[in-house]
């Protein structure tokens, strides 16, 4: 009896127990919080290192969406004559591109997080969740800069023309961005966990993102789609996000609370699922990657 109590006392003194498996919902969020300094240093690293030894430096952040928008205006606007719901083409495409890029950057970078960091993960332990979080945050900064560019154009059109009608839903933009990040992070974590074993997904991803962009109203308004395909596009949880983003800024597009709630719920599920799968894989991935 006395031995048993003694044992119990010493059991409680262990600061950590390493076991083969963890509980499913043990995301070690407290650990993540402990490593918050690492999170911010990683964000800083991403930000500082990208444009070192380039002449234009952070100006590239502006040029990327600018060039894409220009291409879209020429290809989809001028050549294909796809409707922009009466909105100025530049602004229409730029809203789409800016928000979409944030999602696709998050997804792209997060989905290769195990492969990209295998050398670090193989040598040091820290809560792996820090890595995808740092990706989302550093891309958020990039998004912020690109959003400023968008706002620049937006103000210009707001003053010089009478085509756009921003409204109160502009206040929802932070939420929209958050949900977009959640979608990118969640799917990215799920894919990254699967690619540690099945590399095939890496090849599918580039193609998949491309395809998903066309299934999301980035280069066309939802209103221009009718018939059999519309259902698919409406069920895409990214659709309401892009539509609301555009509606808030430009005053054209579809807004409904139902769709927003649908997006919120799906984002939550994807992020939770992603985090669970990710923490499950992080313990064993070194043996398979």
């Amino acid at each position: 009896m006395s031995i048993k109590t003694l044992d119990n006392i010493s059991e409680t003194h262990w600061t950590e127990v390493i076991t083969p498996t963890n509980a499913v919902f043990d995301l070690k969020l407290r650990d993540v919080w402990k490593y918050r300094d690492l999170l911010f240093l990683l964000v800083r690293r991403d930000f500082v290192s990208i444009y070192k030894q380039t002449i234009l430096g952070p100006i590239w952040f502006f040029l990327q969406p600018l060039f894409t928008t220009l291409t879209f205006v020429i290809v989809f606007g001028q050549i294909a004559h796809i409707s922009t719901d009466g909105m100025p083409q530049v602004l229409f495409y730029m809203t789409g591109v800016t928000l979409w890029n944030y999602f696709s950057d998050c997804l792209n970078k997060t989905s290769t997080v195990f492969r990209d960091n295998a050398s670090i993960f193989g040598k040091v332990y820290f809560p792996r969740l820090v890595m995808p979080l740092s990706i989302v945050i550093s891309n958020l900064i990039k998004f912020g800069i690109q959003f400023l560019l968008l706002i620049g154009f937006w103000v210009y059109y707001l003053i010089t023309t009478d085509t756009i009608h921003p409204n109160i839903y502009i206040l929802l933009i932070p939420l929209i961005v958050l949900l977009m990040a959640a979608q990118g992070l969640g799917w990215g974590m799920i894919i990254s966990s699967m690619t540690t074993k099945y590399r095939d997904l890496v090849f599918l991803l580039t193609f998949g993102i491309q395809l998903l962009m066309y299934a999301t109203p980035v280069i066309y308004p939802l209103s221009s789609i009718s018939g059999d395909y519309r259902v698919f596009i409406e069920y895409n949880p990214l659709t309401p996000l892009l539509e609301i983003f555009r509606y808030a800024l430009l005053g054209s597009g579809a807004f409904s609370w139902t769709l927003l709630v649908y997006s919120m719920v799906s984002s939550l599920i994807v992020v939770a699922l992603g985090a669970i799968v990710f923490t499950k894989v992080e313990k064993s991935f070194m043996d398979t990657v």
Partner: protein
Amino acid sequence: MSNIAISVENISKQYRLGEVSTGTISHDLNRWWAKLRGKEDPFLRVGEANDRTKKGTSDLVWALKDVNFDVKQGEVLGIIGRNGAGKSTLLKVLSKVTQPTTGNIKVRGRIASLLEVGTGFHPELTGRENIYLNGAILGMTKSEISRKFDEILDFSGVERYVDTPVKRYSSGMYVRLAFAVAAHLEPEILIVDEVLAVGDAEFQKKCLGKMKDVSGEGRTVLFVSHNMGAVRGLCNTGLFMDNGTVGMFGDIQSAVDLYLTANTNADGIFQLGRQGKEEIVVFEKVILRNQFGIQTQNYNFGDSISIEIECSSDQEVELPYFWISIESQFGSLCAANSLLDGIRPKFVRGKFIIACTFKNLKLLPQSFIIFAGGRLKSGTEMSTRSKEIGSFTMVSKLNEIGLNGELAESFAPSASPLYIPYSWRFNNEESIDVNL
């Protein structure tokens, strides 16, 4: 009970050999199906002890099998064993880089592991930025790093270049900076894997000194090394790993002795093979013979040892350098080194033999390890990685050699092993020669 820092219980780790991707889906489904029925994982039952020299029948091996030991607080544990004995896997499991297949480890206190120096260094960032980043990866907070920043910089000796991107650093400077960060971690438990094998001699000394300081402060250290000298100097407890199991756990001297004498082949033949893709000349097999041409691992005082390395090379290598060195438990002892004597073949190609005879071995009855390596014509590029290629044991009785000191038996195992003729003289009396 309460002064135990790490308690390892029944740790096993299974790896799958060969192509990981083949058949993983079917294995996964099998596993999942067994789990669903509440049965044991079918793949955990297969597998065999990890012995890399023997060809196994299953492609599942146990890198670690039922490892049990406790490390007390403040203890410095040296983990030794041959290549592939499971040392690194054990460290990886302890540092949470990979999970064990079965068993558990209980830990008291914060662990920091140094399986490599400079993990996460980004070449584009400056020394200063990398100190912060690397420190944070190793588990320090930003304020902790700021507090120790000057100390770290001072220890590294690269103050002048602190605002230069590390990609412009020499490899030596890089390592210095990286080790400096690591050396300033203040965990209760420190896990170190042969990081001391890098850097110049002066820096190595500094590192060993730092490790001594750490252990002197009452912190627990786990140290993996092939350098028996460093292990003996630093550690008080030894863990000898053998084929993924605990060969011995006890005081460091016995563990080192066991490591040096654990012969898998008494007939003096060692099977080697390619280690790493970059090896141009591969050491395939080593045969040890005495002066009578008999294959053996046991030698008497004054014997000769002939070391024959069967090599192979796919390409023609012109004027290669080779060296063969003998190491005692204290470290390197003597060597035949063509980088020094300049004697080398005009070229080698295909299958060939490098043989070297060390004559008149005047060594005490202890065990010794043979290392060998090779370099290309330039002398700077590697052709064969420096590695352990074999071992031998001196077996003569002390009184047969002529060492008749009363305490000779008890001191000989840990005495400096190389004998050079000498003479004593006390108080201007006649000098006494010791000529064995």
